[in-house]
């Protein structure tokens, strides 16, 4: 490893799944990796803003891309008026502000940007987010943070059903209540819900952790309550303070949920290898 300190050396490897994985591990010092063809070098000090009221969806996204191309690192979009698919596919660091609300599929497929939305978001916000930060001041629709792999996704209001469905990493924080099937088939990562949770919370979850501050309508199959450790409490305190949020009844009253792993029936063999053994 030499003088390079990797995240693994720092102890951040608890979440690594046992068994085989298709995930590629790489070193940030190697040359051949890690730059996206559409990731731009931007300067955060260079800022721009535009009014999106009379623009089409594609025009808005192209305008954001063109500003990033010319090195703008802080972009403010005014009057998004709940249009769909805005701020998607941003693969570099960027400060992006939406002054208003987004429609469906907002900020999906992003890797890196800090996004702030002063209004609400519709269904499937930040779908498949890889890294970065998205903060929403008001409510979110269903499928909030579907299949996210990394970064922080924060909704200060309430969110709809199926929040964090298929979550594979990262952190989802919801300031108020969430709907049914939240954390459905969750595979990794953490979810912090400060309000109430709907029916079938954490149904068929494989792994990962859900913290709930309010009442839970019902737990899904194989989702179990587990012991809240001091480490969990410190983590929650730190994470929530980052976003000026707090548990309504205090962190001590929060509940921690994980997978019971009763539905697990995996072994370490790939299907083809299994045949060979048999």
């Amino acid at each position, binding site marked *: 490893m030499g003088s390079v300190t990797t995240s693994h050396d720092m102890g951040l490897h608890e979440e690594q799944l046992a068994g085989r994985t298709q995930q590629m591990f790489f070193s940030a010092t190697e040359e051949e990796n890690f730059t996206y063809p559409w990731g731009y070098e931007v300067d955060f000090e260079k800022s721009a803003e535009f009014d999106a009221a009379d623009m089409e969806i594609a025009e808005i996204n192209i305008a954001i891309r063109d500003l990033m191309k010319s090195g703008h690192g802080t972009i403010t979009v005014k009057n998004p008026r*709940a249009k769909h698919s805005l701020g998607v596919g941003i693969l570099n660091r960027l400060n992006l502000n939406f002054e208003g609300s987004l429609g469906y599929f907002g900020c999906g497929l992003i890797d890196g940007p800090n996004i702030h939305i002063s209004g*609400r978001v519709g269904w499937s916000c930040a779908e498949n987010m890889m890294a970065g930060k998205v903060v929403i001041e008001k409510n979110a629709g269903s499928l909030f943070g579907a299949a996210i792999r990394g970064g922080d996704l924060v909704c200060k209001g309430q969110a709809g*059903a199926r929040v964090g469905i298929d979550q594979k990493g990262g952190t989802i924080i919801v300031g108020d209540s969430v709907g049914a099937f939240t954390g459905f088939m969750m595979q990794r990562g953490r979810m912090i819900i400060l309000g109430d949770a709907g029916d079938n919370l954490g149904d068929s979850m494989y792994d990962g952790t859900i913290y709930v501050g309010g009442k839970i309508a019902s737990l899904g199959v194989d989702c179990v309550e587990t012991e809240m450790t001091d480490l969990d409490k410190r983590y929650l305190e730190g994470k929530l303070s980052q976003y000026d949020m707090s548990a309504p009844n205090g962190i001590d009253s929060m509940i921690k949920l994980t997978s019971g792993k009763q539905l697990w029936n995996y072994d370490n063999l790939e299907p083809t290898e299994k045949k060979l053994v048999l």
Partner: protein
Amino acid sequence: MCGIAGLIWKGGVTSDIGSEMTQMLQALKHRGPDSTGFALYGKGDEGVHVLRFKVAEQEEMKTGFDIHRLVVERKAAVDVRLAEMGAEVIEREDATEYAFRYHFKFDGDLKRLIDFIEDLDGVEILSVGKALELIKDLGDATVVSDQYGLKGFVGTHAIGHTRMATESDVDIRSAHPYWAYPFNDVSVVHNGQLTNYWTMRRDLERRGHRFMSNCDSELIAVYIADQIDRGDELEGAMQRTIDVIDGVFTYLVATGNQLGMAKDVMGAKPMVLYESDEFVGLASEEVAIRSIFPREIDTWDPYQGEVKVWAA
């Protein structure tokens, strides 16, 4: 996929709901370009019924054999039957060449009158009501609205639908909204698919209800009509649909003075709600509500299994 929208002005306020609903549905065009339907609730005059009916499909008008003569004949036959039953027609309007709007006075059994008219071959009643007027045709919201002159329609509440045909044909018969025959002023729009349609349809048919189309959404209208007929309140009837009807659905119901919404237990279909002191707006997508309120507004999604009813 389908897009649905609803709006209601509270406290007896009236507005140009024709234009408002046209804008909302036009914003939802991408959810369903096949047909558009409006259920508009006007003020209505005491003792006067509004009848909306059609005597042909749009497609038939282009290709049908001798259809123009048939249209005239069918309309004349409706006039004869109305007179025969003792209905006094005050006003006749041609909405299109094949769809008509009548104002009439009638004191007798409305269901008998309706059945008698619909018994005519090729004639379909879209709605009968004191406040309700139901308009549906092929094309997007602006096309239908212009064709039927809906802009400037003053009223208290409305629901609408843009349809992407999945379960049945692209024609007016399968277009939403559905009128809850034979009840005055009850209409329904629905987004989703119902899986116990045939079981429930057979059950309702055995009890004497009639279905005009093979569209699953009609079931909701007929079921709610049946429940109201048995003395249930609108909200109670809607609550029951959550348990009884199987499948995915988010639907809106309107009566003479109420607007209601219900969502299935999975919350599989979207609905965005905006509520202020004087207005409630509902739509499959927020863009529809923004089309009439471009300023920043607070909206949220009602949860799965929720039923809400507002009064005008």
